[in-house]
């Protein structure tokens, strides 16, 4: 349906101080303050916050929020399956459907339909295969709101197998060193675990305490990570020399990591492609493993969805907007500023 003055999303979607807002549904998407109605795309802390009155999220995302914020993180938790079309609050009907975003377990794109206009908000997403979550699907729409975390042509994420191999080679070459790898506790951790197992690594993998609950949650969803041991359960830490330890990035340089023997620090993140970023994280072994689209994936997604307009949210908006315009789309930047870089 052509966009008109009557149904163009620019009239019913707004950037408000609390986040992206759908006026007729009186509902926010991933607000960074507690609000009345919130659609949550995925469980990362900068997108899923506690304390909303009503939450619409996929069952997996809701489970993640309960692990992080407790059973009662919100009084009204609406579990919505992928593909299930529901009507949001508000006098005039706005319909919402979740589709997989391929970012982490439970991550969803949000399709909103209002007066015949279709708007897709991707949330965070990626196109490379990831066994820890459902793959992204391109949904036809009029306005496509895409993230742009890695929205610069310098970003080309290599296949995860390649990066896992880098870690394994380093383990073989420096067999006396504890390979401490920084990974985000939600998503990246589980993906790296699966990646190591897929590459044939069968030894136990050691985990920082902050990882345990979420790894267990993934296990209840049926994922098999092989033998994982909490570092706090290891009686003699010297035995960790030559092993893989996964920890949140913040633990790489704090006191916790100093008790490990002969540490070689790695970091698994899309930012590791930029040399200086690796240094800034205090890492010596950069593993370019990202849960976001790289530049080419962003462009491919825009072409595939082929919307009338591309709206670019958090990240490097300028470059992606420029490129989308060159590709013939109407493009604008939403300049949502509340989200972390990754």
């Amino acid at each position, binding site marked *: 349906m052509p966009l008109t003055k009557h149904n163009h999303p620019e009239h019913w979607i707004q950037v408000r101080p609390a986040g992206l807002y759908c006026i007729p549904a009186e509902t926010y998407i991933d607000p960074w303050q507690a609000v009345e109605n919130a659609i949550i795309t995925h469980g990362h802390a900068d997108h899923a916050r506690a304390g909303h009155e009503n939450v619409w999220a996929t069952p997996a995302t809701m489970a993640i929020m309960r692990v992080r914020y407790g059973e009662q993180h919100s009084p009204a938790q609406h579990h919505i399956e992928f593909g299930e079309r529901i009507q949001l609050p508000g006098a005039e009907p706005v319909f919402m459907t979740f589709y997989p975003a391929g970012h982490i377990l439970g991550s969803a794109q949000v399709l909103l339909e209002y007066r015949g206009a279709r708007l897709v908000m991707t949330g965070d997403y990626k196109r490379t295969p990831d066994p820890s979550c459902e793959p992204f699907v391109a949904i036809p729409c009029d306005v496509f709101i895409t993230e742009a975390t890695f929205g610069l042509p310098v970003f080309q994420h290599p296949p995860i197998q390649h990066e896992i191999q880098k870690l394994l080679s380093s383990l073989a070459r420096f067999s006396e060193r504890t390979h401490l790898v920084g990974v985000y506790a939600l998503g990246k951790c589980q993906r790296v675990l699966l990646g190591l197992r897929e590459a044939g690594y069968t030894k136990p993998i050691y985990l920082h305490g902050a990882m345990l609950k979420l790894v267990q949650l993934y296990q209840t969803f049926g994922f098999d990570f092989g033998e994982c041991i909490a570092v706090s359960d290891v009686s003699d830490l010297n035995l960790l020399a030559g092993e893989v330890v996964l920890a949140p990035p913040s633990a790489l340089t704090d006191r916790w990591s100093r008790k490990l023997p002969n540490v070689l620090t790695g970091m698994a993140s899309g930012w590791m492609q*930029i040399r200086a970023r690796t*240094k*800034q994280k205090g890492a*010596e072994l950069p593993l370019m493993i990202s849960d976001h689209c790289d530049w080419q994936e962003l462009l491919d997604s825009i072409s595939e969805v082929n919307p009338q307009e591309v709206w670019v949210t958090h990240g*490097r908006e300028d470059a992606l907007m420029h490129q989308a315009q060159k590709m013939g789309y109407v493009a604008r930047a939403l300049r949502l500023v509340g989200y972390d870089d990754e």
Partner: protein
Amino acid sequence: MMNKLSELFDALYFTASNKAKSVLLREYLATTCDPERGWAIAALAGTLQFTHYKRNTVKKLILERVDPVLFALSYDYVGEMSETVAHLWPNEPDPDFVMPTLSEFVAFMQTAKKSEIETQLIYLLNNCSPNLRWTLLKLGTGGLRVGLSARRLKHILAEYGQSHQAAVTVHDIENLWHGLTPPYTDLLLWLENSGPKPDISEKVVFHPVLLAHPLQEDDKEKVTYTDYLAEYKYDGIRVQIVVKDTEKALFSRTGDNISHSFPDVLADFNLPGVYDGELLAMREGVIGSFNDLQQRLNKKKPSKKLQAEYPCGLVLYDALFVPTSIVEPKKEKLTCQTEQSIKNICHLTLVERKRYLRATMQCFESTISLFSEAFTVHNTAELDQLRTEACSDPSGYTEGLMLKRKDSPYTPGRPKGVWYKFKRDAQLVDAVIMYAQRGHGKRSSFYSDFTFGLWQNDPAQDALSEQPKLLPIGKAYSGFTDIELKELDKWVRKNTIGRFGPVKEVNKTLVFEVAFDAAHASKRHKSGVALRFPRIHRIRWDKPALEADTLPIFKKTHQIK
């Protein structure tokens, strides 16, 4: 071979500890043949340069391939040219491609014509992985920045020599270094105990200088003042002047040959030997201000007019080599003849060297050099008093005092307890941040380069009539901790009100306490003020911007019209 080099550079870049870097480099030297390894050292030392393969060559080629807007945004984000290009260059592999060795590459780049170089470079980049591209690009654009200082490199070379039982110290390498040229085959063979020590006695070379430590408060109690000579610290640039036979050269403190910038000084200087001193603005023996000297700095070919307008001269304070003819018959008087050969006196004490220096200056008349007189300070009170006088000297060419140990030989580097500098305190001003830009190198992708300004008028009064206005007085990108860097980056992102390409204009609400060495008049800035070596001293999250300093008062305090 090129792959091996690229792996070495990457490993050095990502390895943090100096010890591990040394192991990596020595492993490379032991397993790589000549002249490959010598060219690698040249690349690490920054002594590998090509006439027709430079930064601009690379920039031109990438802009022929990538949308300029996307290139600019990428470069702004990555903060490093070679890395940006390495990632952006389109992959176009040729199945018949064979990678040249490093020495083939160097030979080609040194001898080929400009157009051939471009063609070959394009072909190479088309066929390389991003990591290899980065190495190739770094060879041309210079400034490898793999976290290995020139000094560390020489330490590692010495360690390499010691592992082959060669009797070599880092001083030996420092002393030889500036007389050697890539690919350093003679040096490497000597280090491996399979060749003679390279002979550089005939060459006009830079000799690494003796550097001073700042005098800290607690040093004052440790120092026995009578063991030291005091001198004024002149506010110019540190230079070394070398005169051997018919050749002469003027070097900066880091060994850059700056002869071309000061032909007038070199022409009038005829003392055979190697001398350590300060280059200053000087007319007929009268020293001028740093501001005058500044007109002469970084001018590759100063015009006759500029030379006449801003003449320069030297204040000499030490001698490393003096004419052989200057002998020391008795303690009191040195005699001289007119012979030109020179001898090394670095092993002598400071007192003896100064005596030689004075005698040489008396024998060989020089119209443009002055002798730095030494005196004795007896206690802390006297020291503080003298420093205060030196710093507030109205002529403005001294910026503090030096203390130099009387019995010390001249050793390169920064030995402890030998030379102290006691400079004037940094001055401070509260300025408001106006613009921010992403940083380079280790500050890559963070907003860390700041332009700050002062209120044009008193904002309290201004507010009644019109919008108060800031005028920029300088830029700074250092002085804060890594944590502050992240906080500032976040602040900039939240407070951006405008964009001019890579520059972000921010809310005029945050105050920096800026430290600087001196303030002087400048025609380049609208404010009419320029600061010397500004750095961020403190971030005043607490201070309201309207209470920052004003330009009229700042100018008055610093006597700028």
